[in-house]
């Protein structure tokens, strides 16, 4: 029978988690720049600390403005809740630290953002958490890498740098066979392009710095739980299913059947690691979220035009965009990313490292910097910036050529972007001499 449903995505992007302020009538979400919240009485204070009442105590743990952001992202992802963090990196760390410790093991896609790779490879290993990296398309490798101490499978919805499309249905099925969650970094796709929970993922995080904010103004992250994994039944997660001495013997899975993970992430992770989001940052990202559907539609439309232009240009050897038939995940992308594959991609310029530099320096509209997901178009040349210490052989091993260029297509008129690229490609061609 037809019947009521929750509001649609575009409505949630504007309204989820926010209502007119009861104290002032303010329609827009106020910025609650306060560290602390006054208790009504000693009894009220005690009950807040002891989780007998819900409410705010101290802005490292929760804040009204930040909570609106958290609830809105959770709504857009189809989750049970979220925890906002100081950055995307902090969100990844919080996800790991909530369910893993010394002696734990992670299976991760090898196609990761460099910062995530560093955290898993070098930093977490110093704390006794080991990671096995697998090629994301090698489904058998995911299964083979799982050990008795594995706590997490982790990949990016669109991998770095080649936009490998994570086969979330198959990888999540492998994770669930082992009783562990699949965590997805969905920064490049946002919930408008793909909702990983609907495909089987259990946890999602974003660098909200990128498309969720969309304006290149703030750094932030957010970690969302689907509430679907039965941590107790899994038997691998005493952090959630056994008494926690750090909170009066609380058993998180008893406290909240579907919110245990987020309870611990907030009650331990934000309390003790402290990588919280500023309410001012949350407010700015909320401004971005309100127009996320409109912006993502335009980002993708512009990216498609630019990809089509580059793919036909003689100075371009290859464009790595899953909507192109040449991409190894083309078929998978059509299934899992029907709305589009985002607006961040790389292409290979024919020519030398010097020609790549000439291309970058000739661009006028594209900003040369280390970020993606801005409303303005961005560009970076890995061989002369992020990977400049590598020789050509080492670059090749990392999947990066001397002429590899990464673009983040913004919201300008696509024709203007193409004029800018055409001019820079001409400059690169002249630099061959």
């Amino acid at each position, binding site marked *: *029978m037809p019947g*009521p449903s929750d509001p649609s995505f575009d409505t949630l992007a504007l309204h989820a988690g926010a209502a007119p302020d009861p104290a002032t009538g303010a329609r827009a979400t106020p910025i609650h720049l306060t560290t602390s919240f006054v208790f009504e009485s000693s009894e009220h204070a005690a009950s807040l600390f002891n989780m007998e009442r*819900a409410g705010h105590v101290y802005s490292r743990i929760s804040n009204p403005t930040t909570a609106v952001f958290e609830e809105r992202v959770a709504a857009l992802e189809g989750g049970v809740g*979220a925890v*906002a963090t100081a950055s995307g990196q902090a969100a990844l760390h919080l996800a790991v630290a909530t369910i893993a410790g010394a002696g734990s093991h992670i299976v991760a896609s090898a196609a990761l953002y460099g910062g995530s790779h560093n955290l898993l490879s070098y930093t977490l290993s110093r704390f006794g958490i080991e990671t096995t990296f697998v090629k994301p398309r090698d489904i058998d490798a995911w299964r083979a890498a799982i050990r008795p101490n594995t706590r997490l499978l982790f990949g990016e919805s669109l991998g770095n740098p080649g936009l490998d499309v994570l086969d979330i249905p198959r990888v999540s099925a492998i994770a669930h066979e082992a009783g562990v969650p699949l965590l997805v970094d969905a920064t490049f796709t946002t919930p408008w392009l793909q909702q990983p929970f609907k495909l089987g993922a259990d946890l999602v995080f974003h660098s909200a710095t990128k498309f969720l904010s969309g304006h290149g103004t703030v750094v932030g992250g957010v970690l969302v739980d689907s*509430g679907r994994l039965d941590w107790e039944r899994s038997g691998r997660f005493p952090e959630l299913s056994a008494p926690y001495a750090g909170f009066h013997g609380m058993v998180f899975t008893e406290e909240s059947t579907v919110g245990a993970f*987020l309870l611990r992430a907030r009650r331990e992770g934000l309390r003790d690691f402290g990588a919280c989001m500023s309410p001012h940052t949350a407010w700015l990202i909320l401004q971005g979220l309100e127009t996320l559907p409109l912006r993502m539609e335009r980002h993708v439309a512009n990216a498609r035009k630019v990809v089509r232009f580059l793919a036909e240009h003689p100075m371009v050897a290859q464009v790595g965009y899953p909507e192109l038939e040449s991409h190894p995940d083309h078929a998978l992308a059509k299934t899992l990313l029907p709305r589009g594959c985002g607006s961040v991609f790389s292409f290979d310029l024919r020519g030398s490292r010097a020609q790549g530099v000439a291309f970058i320096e000739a661009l006028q509209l594209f900003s040369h910097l280390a970020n993606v997901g801005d409303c303005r178009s961005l560009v970076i040349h890995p061989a002369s910036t992020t990977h400049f210490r590598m020789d050509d052989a080492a670059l090749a091993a990392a999947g990066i050529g001397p002429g590899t260029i990464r673009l983040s297509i913004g919201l300008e008129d696509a024709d203007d972007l193409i004029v800018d690229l055409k001019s820079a490609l001409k400059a690169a061609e002249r630099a061959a001499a």
Partner: protein
Amino acid sequence: MKFDVQGRTAYAYTGGRPWGDGERCVVFIHGALNDHSVWTLLARWYAHHGYRVLAIDQPGHGRSDGPPLASVEALADWVLALLDAAGVASAHLVGHSMGSLIALEAASRAPGRVAGLVMVGTAYPMKVSDALLGTARDDPARAIAMVNAFSHSGLASKPSYPGPGAWLRGGSSALMHRIQEGAEGNLFEHDFRVCDAYANGLEAAARVACPAHLVVGTRDAMTPPKATKELAAALRATVSRIVSGHALMQEAPDAVLNAVRQAISA
């Protein structure tokens, strides 16, 4: 905390404190396709204010063994058997929705053992439309989505449950799916048929000897406030009206606590 009730394992959350001795006890009874976790804030509050607390998982729900019981009357007997197993002579019964009918029936069956009755998000009769029962039978996922949308009155209920950052509609949906997937058979349809079939409410109300209190949501589309008038009169109940949908404990946890405290003072 697990008990043996009628030969099967029954689970009850004890409010974050060890189960112990004491005169005063509050039993919280959840609604259809839910479990004890809809009560944890209230349960913690009472457990830390001088009461022993049992927030139960009904048979076949969550951590309690199945099968689910076939009627409100059988569930009421089960609650009374749980009190026996836990060594509780007398308790306040607080129920939500389907759980409120179970509390009512238990209070009528053992008037000497029930110190107070609180019915939250209640109605009598609790009829379910044929269309919804049919959807529950044929497409439980769709029925869950419908009931979830019916049960929440807004998109921003603060301070959220169980705490800030929780998306209530997502939490309620995930809980119903979890309980349904962990159950034997179509528990969603079962629970709604149990509500629909209960016909003893007014007779039960006439036998209730303890004080009764109703807590209703002014925006409740599942059990609208007007559907409580006859019941309230039969129980001679006091009534608290809260701005909330049917998911009262999630949408308005502080207001529900204040209302329950009117009935069960600490």
